[in-house]
């Protein structure tokens, strides 16, 4: 365990905000008022919220201590499958904080905000070039929001053809957001079973597809980390019945510059900028989920989009077929700026190389660990590899135990128990920004943990012991919810 980064250190306790402070303290500068005081309508005014009063030092120390209880990409390897926890470049933060760009009010006339519109216009073009799908909206605030936008486009497309459709095909490997997004548009999900090798068969799609089905939502590479090799034939089968193909681009980090979504037969695709394009995940957000579509579907995209007329940029609202708006303003613009900064830094060759190395890292881990943990499917993997805890059952060790013990060794655990089609799944996505040394060290850590599971299984069951807290009682949290202090 000597080579592993995990150790114990002095961890500071810190109470909840309202358990500290004193009435009358203030943590920020408020200007003296330079206008007369006027009485407000007494019938409408209230006492103001019951917030604690804290000093600036109270606040700074509070959040500094809280931050030290977190594990982030900057702390160490974060091989959380399906989440693409790559390094988040610092220059992106500096770029997004450019005062003139970050201070812009979203309702100013186009002539006043040419810099921001240029970023939007160019980013739309870059994402169009990367996917091969030229129509792009930047409004969706997250991947699931992009999916919803995609389903709204499906609904608008079919409505424009007077075609009534109420079902949608979704493979069993899909993220739960897919069926939930489709349901918001009144589509009943029809689950498709993946084949014996983890890949969707053309036949299952042909059998299920009919003229009451709006289309298919397919993640490629899929959530098992495998490329859906039948994608073109699947798309043809869906198109033959008048349906559309939604490509969930959550796993785009595997295939930049390698596949062309349009050539795969995909009509609509969202990208997760917080995964593939390096914007920080921020403990859950903000993300961005732009949607790219074919030329034919461009007319249905949300308004407005940035266009270029001569050498000026403007926001185009005049799109009568548009689904409408999905965000208060222009999406999570500060996230868009970071992705723009990343793409400008990388260029085409480096983005492609990033995908190559992301796949190399995953394939290397798969190869090095396939004798230690049972592979779910022994096929060429893309950017992530999926194992199960089948071989651990005789020692009464579970995926959860392995994950928790990895924390003690200084790693964020992989994604566990997803995808649902693999029992006790352990899904490892190293990303391209991890170097060979660190990956080798991680592989050794997994091997040690698995070995420990055979010799000292209790070490796994009581893990973690080096973190701030031991395992938490999630059952109690749900049974007697305490959601507010």
């Amino acid at each position: 365990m000597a080579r592993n980064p995990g150790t114990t250190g002095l961890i500071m306790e810190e109470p909840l905000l309202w358990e500290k402070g004193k009435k009358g303290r203030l943590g920020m500068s408020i200007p003296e008022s330079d206008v007369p005081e006027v009485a407000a309508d007494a019938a409408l005014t209230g006492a103001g919220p019951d917030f604690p009063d804290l000093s600036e030092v109270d606040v700074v120390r509070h959040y500094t201590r809280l931050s030290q209880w977190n594990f982030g990409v900057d702390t160490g390897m974060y091989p959380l499958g399906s989440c693409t926890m790559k390094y988040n470049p610092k220059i992106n933060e500096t770029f997004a904080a450019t005062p003139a760009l970050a201070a812009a009010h979203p309702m100013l006339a186009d002539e006043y905000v040419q810099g921001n519109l240029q970023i939007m216009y160019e980013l739309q073009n870059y994402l169009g070039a990367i996917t091969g799908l030229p129509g792009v909206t930047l409004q969706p605030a997250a991947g699931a929001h992009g999916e919803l936008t995609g389903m709204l486009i499906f609904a608008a497309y079919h409505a424009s053809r007077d075609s009534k459709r109420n079902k949608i095909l979704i493979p069993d490997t899909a993220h739960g957001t897919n069926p939930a997004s489709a349901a918001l548009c009144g589509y009943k999900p029809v689950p498709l079973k993946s084949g014996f090798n983890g890949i969707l068969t053309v036949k299952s799609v042909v059998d299920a597809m009919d003229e009451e089905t709006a289309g298919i939502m397919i993640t490629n590479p899929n959530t098992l980390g495998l490329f859906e090799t039948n994608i073109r034939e699947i798309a043809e089968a869906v198109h033959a019945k008048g349906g559309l193909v939604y490509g969930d681009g959550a796993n785009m980090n595997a295939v930049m510059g390698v596949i062309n979504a349009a050539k795969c037969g995909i009509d609509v695709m969202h990208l997760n900028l917080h995964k593939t394009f390096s914007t920080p995940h921020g403990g859950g957000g903000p993300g961005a989920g732009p949607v790219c579509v074919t030329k034919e579907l461009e007319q249905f995209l949300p308004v407005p989009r940035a266009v270029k007329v001569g050498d000026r940029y403007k926001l185009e609202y005049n799109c009568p077929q548009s689904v409408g708006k999905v965000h208060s303003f222009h999406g999570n613009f500060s996230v868009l700026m970071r992705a723009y900064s990343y793409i400008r830094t990388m260029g085409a060759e480096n983005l492609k190389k990033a995908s190559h190395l992301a796949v190399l890292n995953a394939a290397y881990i798969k190869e090095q660990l396939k004798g230690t943990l049972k592979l779910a499917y022994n096929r060429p993997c893309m950017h992530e590899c999926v194992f199960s805890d089948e071989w651990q059952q005789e020692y009464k060790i579970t995926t959860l135990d392995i994950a928790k013990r990895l924390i003690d060794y200084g790693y964020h655990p992989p994604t566990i128990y997803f995808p649902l089609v693999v029992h006790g799944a352990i899904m490892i996505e190293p990303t391209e920004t991890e170097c060979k040394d660190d990956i080798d060290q991680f592989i050794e850590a997994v091997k040690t943990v698995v070995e420990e599971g055979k010799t000292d299984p209790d070490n796994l069951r009581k893990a973690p012991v080096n973190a701030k807290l031991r395992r938490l009682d999630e059952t109690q949290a749900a049974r007697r919810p305490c959601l507010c202090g």
Partner: protein
Amino acid sequence: MRYLPHTSEEIDAMLKVVGRKRLDELFCSVPDDCRYDGTMDLPEPMTEWALTDHASELAEAMKINHRHKVLIGAGSYHHYIPATIPALISRSEFLTAYTPYQPEIAQGTLQSLFEYQTLTARLLGMDVANASIYDGASALAEALLMGLRISKKKKKVAISKAVHPHYRQVASTYLHPSEYELVELPYGEDGRTDLSGLSEIDDLAAVAIQSPNFFGVVEDLEGLGEKIHAAGALFITTFTEPLAYGLYKNPGQCGADIVCGEGQSFGLPRSFGGAALGMFACKDQFTRNMPGRLVGETIDMDGKRGFVLTLSTREQHIRREKATSNICSNQGVCTVIASMYMASLGGSGLRRLAKQNFDKMEYLKSAMQAKGARAVFNSPGFNEAVIEFKNDFKPVFDTLVERGIVAGLELGKYYPELAGKYLFCVTETISKDVIDAVVAEVK
């Protein structure tokens, strides 16, 4: 490339382990007819300093920039952001973590979310707040869908025309492909929502009111709530300026069932409208119908207090198409910023800042009146108001832009009946001198 750490020797060694000769052989499962032809059409890579120069060029292309005094709110507000916030939020333990799936090493995120939920619930006077959703507009759409879920068989929801026009548009976009109908309620001459037609709408699940509304008018939430409840509908309130609840009664005190809105005011830069912060809260009995993540308190194996994501049986990864929403993330960092802001102000500071915003607008209104302009709606307000001028204001607006002041938002694009009238906002960042400079130009 500095983000790609592999040396060519390492690549060769790794390829050898996986039994490949070249990197592109890793993609043997990708059929030829799916492959990208040629190279992606993207600009050449930029060095860090070239990119910094590019940022300066883009900044120069902004005719209105951070040095301008912008007297526009309308859902995006300029409040002073204390230096502590960018300093603290740049801590990469917050920034580069993800969803706290492993609570033992995510207590920083989890405790700060629990604190955010609590401060939000206290601010809005509600029992429970979630860990946030995308933005104010999608929060309202989700609230209407939640109202329909709670009311089960009912098929209609109503929304005041004094709600932010973008929020109404997003709600309409969300509901369009569904079987539900969205009805608009008019506003009266006082700029407040007119519920006189409410009794004629049957099958009504919920009614949404914004306060302060888009015109900056504070609605009589208590009175509206009574009428809405009497009509058998749920009372949803929304907001774009949460600072107002430092001065005015919160929606919970006025009987709201679901409260949602935009939290950008609390420490987030305007940033062209995003990243935004959808705040969302409800009464206790509706918790299990609420969309979005929730953090709850629990204990660890040693009995120590800790926090976890909870009640996830409402959510998409468990319930799939039967989930309360398709949302699977939250606005993480934005919630931490909002909490830092609320904590830095405290109860006393929030009150003082809210009152100052109110006083600034009262000053602007009376100064305008002295010049023959007037507030269109004679109702209580907060830091925004619609102003009508005797003469065309556009030439004055243009003159003021040249002098570094953006004097309000012309409303014709959003409300044709209010064409030529301007929505003004003044916060603590706008000094009396700036207000005087605007008023001096009014003709």
